[in-house]
């Protein structure tokens, strides 16, 4: 009797587990990612932001990017350092050093004069700990909302007319080599 009961329990336990294993799969991921090895993602959980000493890094993009065409989240973009970066009279980053970063995401332009925007982060500068950088860069296109709102409010008393201002569309976002991008490097931050 006891044996039968034991077998029944074992069958029940292993049966359930096997059934569970059937459910617990994401085949799509198994197919696409099984052989790939990934670097560890940057986690920043040990910090001490006491120090205020910093160096300003001025960058310019190598090749123009725009939300008009061909952007995708995660694309790599290249920058060059515009001038020598000094800290305590010592050059820590030389002019023309190549810097890479990633387009984290972007938004398209919209009604009511809303411009598109590009968010760039994960800047990698040779010999510089990226966790000591304050570096998220957001660039927006031509913002027409500031013009749309007063017109909309002024026209609101006339029925339906105010709503026509909704049709004003904001500008595309474009980062060209003429734009200067500022990053801040805090060498004393304990990260």
């Amino acid at each position: 009797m006891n044996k039968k009961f034991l077998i029944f329990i074992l069958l029940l336990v292993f049966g359930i587990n096997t059934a569970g294993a059937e459910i617990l799969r994401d085949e799509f991921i198994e197919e696409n990612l099984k052989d790939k090895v990934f670097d560890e993602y940057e986690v920043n959980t040990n910090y001490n932001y006491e120090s205020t000493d910093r160096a300003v890094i001025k960058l310019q993009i190598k090749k123009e990017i725009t939300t008009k065409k061909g952007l995708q989240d995660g694309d790599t973009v290249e920058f060059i350092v515009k001038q020598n970066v000094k800290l305590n009279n010592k050059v820590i980053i030389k002019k023309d050093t190549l810097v890479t970063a990633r387009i984290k995401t972007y938004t398209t332009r919209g009604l009511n004069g809303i411009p598109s925007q590009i968010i760039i982060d994960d800047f990698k500068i040779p010999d510089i700990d990226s966790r000591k950088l304050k570096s998220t860069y957001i660039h927006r296109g031509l913002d027409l909302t500031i013009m749309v709102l007063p017109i909309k409010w002024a026209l609101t008393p006339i029925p339906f007319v105010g709503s026509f201002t909704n049709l004003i569309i904001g500008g595309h976002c474009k980062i060209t080599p003429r734009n200067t991008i500022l990053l801040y490097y805090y060498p004393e931050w304990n990260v």
Partner: protein
Amino acid sequence: MKKIFCIFACFVMFSGIVFAETEAETILNDMQIQNRISNIGFKLLNSNKIDVRMAFVYDKKTSKTPIEASLTRRQIVVYKDYIKFASDDAEIAAFLAREICKTAESYSGLMKGFVSSAQIKLAPKKYEILFDKRAVDFMVKAGYNPLALITFINKSYPQKRIDRFSHHNLTSKRLANIYEYIYFQYPAFLKDNEYLTNESYQHFLLSSIENRRKLQEKIETGSRENIKYE
């Protein structure tokens, strides 16, 4: 008569103590929840080096949407209605990361962020996807698993019939966008997926088969077009 009076006096005295204890317990419980929310919130801010001020407030009242406080007072209100869906710190972080992103956005742009705040109110649908994606980034930097954003949204947001004329995206569309973002930006979380045993995540997989097939097609063809999720 004396006996009845004594019994009544005892009853009043002890019931007062019981009520006081219950109230004290409630306050202590609220303090613990508030403390947990604040710690997670500030961890997200510090990890992502977000250098603008914002406060995190736990509120037991109900509210449809916490958007007003985030944009105007830079105060992230965590209503009990939302937080009750969170089963761990990662899911609390998922909720907070989205709100942090929105609040940080209200600091940037023209007129000390007034214009940006107006834009978020004028086009919430556009910004909804942006905040979801940025929330993933914030969570990863703070050491949380970004798949918690999928499980949290899947548990807590309803599904409308259509979103063409709505101010908000279909929840299924948001979830598919988050999944795609994690796939391309942080695939290791999907490869070693801790959430495969999570019921909410499994149901997301079940309900997103069509959307995930579209993503698979995009990957196989190497397309750079944005997918139109349903």
